[in-house]
């Protein structure tokens, strides 16, 4: 069994070497520009998703761990678990047929009316694009951030909150203290969610518009690392394109590896203390 795990990791090392060797006989001038737009798309969509998702997730976690009665708590946690388990292809499908038209007809015109002076909300409204992809991603990563924030909050000693209440604190003030103490764990959960968002493929591919460009407007279509692999890998014509795509995959792997390791270490540091 130990050998099995070793074989697993040695295989990924082998893959590492694989993409590396291939990337050497690959035209860097043209492809480097390509990769930049994908990296840009990935970073913007994931961070935007995190921005939307984080406050909501923390709110839900507080609601679950501090406010609500136990019977609602179990069913609500169950629903959120299911939200995490729905295949991403279904999110994407729903995104195309429900969210994208809704974005085009309602949300994007509203944003343009109110914040139209900002470059982020200008341009044509296609429905699909960076913003739509970010919203889908936000929905998808909310369950994991919620779950971890809830666990971290649970690890904070009750006596601290009791002490705060005893001094006459309101409920929110007690919760605020718990949040302050749990901040590194919550950060870990957020980073973990970010890693999920960076690697998410199908749902993003279906709603982001798949156009390799860097534009300030969030309404514009874009392209992410994961979705360029999904779209072009099977149809890649020559060894050159395949190796370039593997290289993109390698970057993706490296980024998610670092992000996830960071998140795990942050979470371990909090849960181990308790």
């Amino acid at each position: 069994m130990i050998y099995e795990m070793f074989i697993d990791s040695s295989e990924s090392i082998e893959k590492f070497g694989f993409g590396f060797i291939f990337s050497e006989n690959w035209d860097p001038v043209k492809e480097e520009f390509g990769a930049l737009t994908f990296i840009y798309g990935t970073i913007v969509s994931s961070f935007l998703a995190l921005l939307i998702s984080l406050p909501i997730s923390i709110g839900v976690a507080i609601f679950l761990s501090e406010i609500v009665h136990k019977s609602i708590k179990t069913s609500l946690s169950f629903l959120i678990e299911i939200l995490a388990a729905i295949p991403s292809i279904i999110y994407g499908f729903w995104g195309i047929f429900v969210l994208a038209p809704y974005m085009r007809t309602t949300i994007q015109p509203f944003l343009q009316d109110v914040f139209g002076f900002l470059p982020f909300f200008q341009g044509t409204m296609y429905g699909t694009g960076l913003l739509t992809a970010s919203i889908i991603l936000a929905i998808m990563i909310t369950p994991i951030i919620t779950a971890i924030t809830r666990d971290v909050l649970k690890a904070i000693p009750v006596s601290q909150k009791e002490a705060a209440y005893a001094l006459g604190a309101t409920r929110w003030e007690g919760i605020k203290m718990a949040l302050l103490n749990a901040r590194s764990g919550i950060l870990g959960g957020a980073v973990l969610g970010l890693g999920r968002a960076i690697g998410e493929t199908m749902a993003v591919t279906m709603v982001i518009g798949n156009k390799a460009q860097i534009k300030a407007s969030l309404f514009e279509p874009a392209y992410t690392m994961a979705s360029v692999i999904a779209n072009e890998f099977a149809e890649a014509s020559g060894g050159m394109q395949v190796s370039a795509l593997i290289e993109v995959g390698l970057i993706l792997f490296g980024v998610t590896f670092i992000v996830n390791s960071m998140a795990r270490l942050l979470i371990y540091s909090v849960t181990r203390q308790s």
Partner: protein
Amino acid sequence: MTADKIFKNPKNLKRRKFVNSLMIFLCVVASVLTILPLLYIFIYTTQSGFSSLNIDFFTQLPKPVGEEGGGMANAIVGSGILLGIGGLIGIPIGILSGIYIAEYSKSFLASAVKFTTDVLSGVPSIVVGIFAYGVIVLTMQSFSAIAGGFALGILMIPTITKITEEMLKLVPQSLREASLALGVSRWKTTLKVVLKTASSGIVTGVLLAIARAAGETAPLLFTAFGNAFWQTNIDQPIAALPLQIFVYAISPYEDWHRQAWAGAFVLIFLVFIVNFLVRFVTREKYS
């Protein structure tokens, strides 16, 4: 410490109380916001999927563009084959590493394995797909069910390991001690006593992993590749339910969308049932 900072300023109670109820209200709003898309997706998929679900969907092959009807029988069988291969790879490795982490948790290697599994669970599924492509498709010079199954197997490992570990930790230490005191060897204790006690939990973990793998699309795009016809040779490209949904969903044909919704409904239904089952079993375990 912070308490001092918070209460130093006893301004007016009214404002503090207002902030209190405002924040709690926002927490409630956040919860509603989270549940809303779930309900929406669930109801929408059920509405558009259930009505197009019929016998043909489960028994017919896909029809060419322009012809009405047809089904996804080959994709359903294909998904079954892929999950079977994936299970053969993922279930033993997952359970064995779970046992190792739980039973031999003191060693450095066990915490290394635990960390690796945690990180592996965060690796994007499409990267796992590239890996399977490199290892199997390039060696065999053909897209194949083996490659797709291999990718799904790797994706199953972290889930199974995690749940096996958690379930084994729930087994009381006294059971192990009793068995060891009777002179039973360590591996036999693990196999016959500990594993047996935790078996129902482990089975649900395996089911959870399979349900999750059943919905995976990204790694199958360039491993299993998809196929419009019957294919049961595992060294040939094979169809899979999520792949078929993807192809149909981005197509411009109304009839194909209808079928894709039906496929989506089948997938969601599967996920829901398995999660419910897991919930049920683990609750019994805890009480």
